[in-house]
Structures are given as C-alpha cells and as structure tokens.
C-alpha cells in the first residue's frame, strides 16, 4: 500500500476527507517486458537464429505448398525423360533414372522430414517430461525404476535401438514417429528430473503444499513452468536430431518406404546410380544439412535468449573495436 495508490484511489481520498493535493505524479513507468517478450527480443537480435528461422520457415512453406509450387507428381514415372540434367526444360533439377522430377521429389520429401522432426520432438518431450517429472518429484523407488529404465535405453546406441525396433514393428509412417520418439525421450527426462530435484526443495513448493495444492497441481503449476526454458531448448535441438535419424534410417532402407519419398531414401537411390548421375546425391544431402543447421541455429538462439545469465553474444575483439570507436572513456 504505497502512497501513490492512496492518492490515485478517489474512494480513499474522500474517506480521508482531504482535498487532493496538486502534486506532480510521475507517469507510471513502462512495464518491463515479460520473460517471453524479452526472450523474443533477444532472439531477434541474434543474426544466426534469425537466419535459421527464416530458412526453416521457407522449408515449411515449401512443404505445405508443394502441390502448387511444382506441377510434377513426384512419383510419376516417365522413362522417355529419364536422367535429364539440371535445368532441362521444365525440370528444374532434372530427372532421376525413372524420369521422376527431382525438384518435386525434394519438395515432397521435405514434408516427411519436417513432419518427423516436429512430431518426434513433440511426442518425446511429452514422454520425457512426464517420466522426468514423476521421477524427480516423487523420488525414492519410483525414481530408481525410472532411472534404471533410462540407463537401459541409454546403454543401447540410439541408431541400433531404432533399427531394432523398426525391424521388428515395421516402418509405417506413424510408427516411425512413435518409435523415434520412444527412443529419444531420455535426455528430456534426465533434464526435467534434475530440475525437479532442485526445485522441489524450494519454499514456494512447500508453501503450495501447505495450503493443500495436490501433487499434480504442484507439478504442473509450479515445477514444470520453471523447467520450461531448458525443455524448449532441448525440444528444438531434438527436431534436428530426429530429421537426421529419419534420413539415416530411410537411407538404410528401414524408414520411409518406396511410394513415399524422403531425403534419405533419395540418397540411397542416388548412391546406386552415382555413376550415371553424380549430381543427384548432392541435393537431398544439402537439404538435410541446411534444415538441420537452421534448426540448430534456432535452438542455440533460443537457449541464449532464455538464459538470463547470458547477455548478447559479442566476440571480445568486436567489443574492443566498438569500445574504441564509440566510448569516450579512456580505459
């Protein structure tokens, strides 16, 4: 109850029975930006992150509107126009050994890759957060069980685990997302568990418990919110990892299957025909590289933006240059 509040409230003034004094009231200071607004601002000042975001948006756009961008069907076989070089006629990047338009195939592949990337990140974050939250909050034998499970999953190399499960359950598209998610939640679980172990000793959690908030309420309302930042960073980076895993599995012949296209599948195809058309192997790999780079830049940008300890990243040499150019103080 500050003085300002009393003055501003006419009700109080009347009750006190005092004429409002004509004092200068300083205009209310602009509200400082919230956590997310500040993070967004910081993110937008990181050139790499912004470029990454733009590139990713371009790929999402291409994936969504593939049908309208290219007139070609990615699966139409046209043996008369097989193995055309790039830039011949209407085929922007030429055609493959069956006369299918490479550019169209790239576009439709981006649908698969992006869907897998975001789908896996989403599902695995949900699984990881749930398991990590339960494990970190309840501790004891629940924690021990969950962590042994994480140990088991981590003891088998990720790629092997993926191959094993895909070989067993087949590689239908939705399965593939679920399987990849099932094998990549451990990082998030560890992270959430660690944060929860720290946070559950906090006084506000004790206070919440004292006023009778349920376990579930404490987890969702008080703990997960404080773990959001690292979870988001982890999820962003996981998109890139998932895209790489999908392409690797498809390359090995265990992922996306024939009528559908994917960058990994295109690469395994291109390797077979690399004597005839060496350029074919270039495009899908470049696409993967660019998308994953973009996602990783975004992830780094988000991490820096959400880390309150991290100020703008300026290399010391550039800082020294600015200082000598703009600062009047002589150090």
């Amino acid at each position, binding site marked *: 109850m500050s003085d300002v509040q009393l003055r501003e409230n006419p009700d109080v003034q009347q009750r006190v029975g005092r004429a409002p004094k004509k004092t200068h009231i300083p205009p209310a200071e602009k509200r400082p930006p919230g956590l997310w607004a500040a993070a967004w601002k910081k993110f937008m000042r990181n050139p790499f992150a912004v470029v990454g975001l733009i590139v990713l948006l371009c790929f999402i756009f291409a994936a969504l509107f593939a049908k309208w961008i290219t007139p070609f069907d990615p699966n139409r076989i046209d043996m008369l126009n097989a193995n055309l070089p790039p830039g011949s006629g209407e085929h922007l990047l030429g055609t493959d050994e069956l006369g299918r338009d490479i550019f169209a195939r790239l576009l439709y592949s981006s649908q698969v890759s992006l869907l897998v990337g975001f789908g896996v990140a989403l599902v695995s974050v949900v699984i990881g957060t749930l398991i990590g939250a339960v494990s970190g909050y309840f501790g004891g034998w629940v924690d021990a069980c969950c962590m042994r499970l994480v140990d088991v999953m981590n*003891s088998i190399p*990720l790629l092997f685990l993926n191959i094993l499960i895909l070989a067993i359950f087949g590689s239908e598209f939705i399965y593939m997302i679920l399987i990849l998610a099932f094998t990549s939640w451990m990082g998030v679980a560890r992270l959430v568990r660690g944060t929860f172990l720290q946070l559950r000793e906090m006084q506000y959690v004790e206070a919440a418990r004292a006023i009778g908030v349920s376990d579930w309420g404490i987890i969702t309302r008080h703990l997960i919110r404080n773990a959001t930042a690292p979870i988001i960073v982890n999820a962003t980076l996981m998109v890139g990892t998932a895209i790489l895993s999908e392409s*690797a599995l498809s390359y*090995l012949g265990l992922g996306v299957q024939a009528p559908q296209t994917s960058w990994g599948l295109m*690469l395994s195809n291109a390797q077979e025909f690399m*004597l005839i058309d*060496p350029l074919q*192997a270039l495009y899908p790999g470049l696409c993967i590289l660019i998308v994953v780079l973009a996602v990783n830049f975004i992830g780094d940008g988000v991490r820096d933006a959400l880390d309150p300890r991290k100020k703008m990243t300026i290399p010391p040499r550039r800082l020294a240059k600015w200082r000598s150019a703009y600062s009047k103080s002589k150090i």
Partner: protein
Amino acid sequence: MTEYLIRRLLQSLLVLFLITVVTFALIHAAPGGPMQIFLAPGLSQEAAKIQAHNMGLDQPLPIQYLRWLGGLLRGDLGYTFKNHLPVGEILWPTVWNTMVLMGTAWFLSLLVAIPWGIYNSTREYGFSDQLASILSYLGFAMPTFWFGIILQEFFALKLNLLPLSDMWTMGREGEIGDLILHLILPVTVLTLGFLAAYVKYSRSSMLEVLQQDYIRTARAKGLRERRVIFRHALRNALIPIITIIGLDLPYLVAGAALTESVFNWPGMGRLFVDMAVAREYSVLMAITLITAVIVIIGNLLADILYVLVDPRVQLGRKGGQSA
C-alpha cells in the same frame, strides 16, 4: 572406492540383465514373433512346426529366455534362423573389422582434437577458433552418410584415386597397404564427426579451467605460459574430456553402422543393418548385447579414470562428488 566400484558393478549387471529381458521381450513382441521368418510360401504348416520345435520356439517364453541366457553364459550366442549358422562365427570377425575402422578414426580425431582445442582456448575467437566452430556446426548438422557418398563420388569415381568401398581389393586380402587405402575415406568421414564434438569439448573445458584463480596465481608467479597451460590447466581440463569420451563409446560402435553401410565395410554395424532387414533376431540380440556391454564398460572406465585423474573426486563418500 572399492565399495563404490562394487556398487557400480552390481548396478551395471542389473542394467545388463534388464537389457537381455528387454531385447528378448521386444523380439517376441514382434507381430508373428521370430516364427514369422519360417513362414515362407511353400512351407507347409507341419514343416514349420517341426522347424520351430527344432529351434525350441514352441516352448513357453520364460523357458526360451532361460535357455537363451544359459547359452549366453556359456558363450553360445545361438544360431541364425535361415542357414543355421552359429552367430558367433558370423559376428566375431565383424567386431574386429569395426575395431580397426573405429579405432583408427577415434585415435586420429583425439590426436587432432585435443591439441586443437587447447590452441583454440588460448586464442578465443581467433581464426582457428572460428574455423573449428564452423566445423562443429557442420559436423553436427551433416548426415555422415551423405558426406561419405560425396567423398566416394569425388575421390573414387571422378579422380579415381581411392577405392570406392569394401575393406580389401579382391586378391589382395591381408596386405596392409591395401587396407590403408581402403581406410582413408571412411576414416575421414568418421574423424570429421568425432572432431566436431571433441574440439568443442576440449576448448570449452580448457576455457573453464583457465578462468580459475589458481591459473592466475600461476601466471602471477611468473611461470611461462606453456607451463601454465600444459602443467596447470590441461591436467584439470582433461577430466571432463575423459568423461565425455567414455560416454561416447556407444557412438564409436553404432556410428559405424551408417559409415560401414556407405562404404560396404564388413563390420558389426553393417551386419546389424543387414540382419535387421533379414530379420535374423538371434544376431540382432547378440549385437545389441555386445554393444550394451561395451557401453557399460565405457561408462565404468570413465568413472574409474575420473578418480585416477582427479584426486579431489571421492566417489561413494558422503560429501564427495558422486558421478
């Protein structure tokens, strides 16, 4: 220390046991189970049944599991379903081939990465540091198999300098020069992948140490910079590097699956992929187990080395840092 080690060892054994259960359960959870492989067209129901009986697949699951585990303890990894070959006979040569490939790449990358990381930490944001940073971004984002294919196209097909794939040229098996020629491309691919991570780790771990007070003290004492870096900083900076390398062991084995497939290297990773396509579950189980054992040993070794390198770490004691 011993007490801690014993506890860790028991924990590892438990994890290993769980892994056998999980892989066994997974394989028998497959639609149709491992039986599916016999159901080739033309095979009558009775014939399939007889074969299943011969392989012991008609027994209840727990008994099958115990049999398999018993065989495992005696060093018997089982037989392949299709040709009834002993799994061990297929597996062990590929393990050796993988070790040749991965060991070379790993050793080379450590040899380059640690000195490079140290150098970069002393010249932060210099040219070499920026280069390493670009390299690590590329290394993390690039599909390794794609890099392999591009190298093949350029060095093997276009320039005709190096062999395209495989481990030996026909008729020259066992010649070390031939092996080295075949190693160059896959080792390059793998080394780049390792380098990307290790340079970054060694740099950041050095940077962290270089900020410590005792480094300032050492410099204030008037020690030469070289002595400060190698004698005072490096020793402590090595600790996290060792841990990370130990934890990376699984990728040493599994990362090879892709590179081996690209270069047709007769290693364990490629065998795993081939057998997954052919659904040879007994081989898959064996390889999964072997890699799991390697991973667990790697983690244990990392822990032990951690103690040996850093006397401050006292494992398993209250108040000490536990890993």
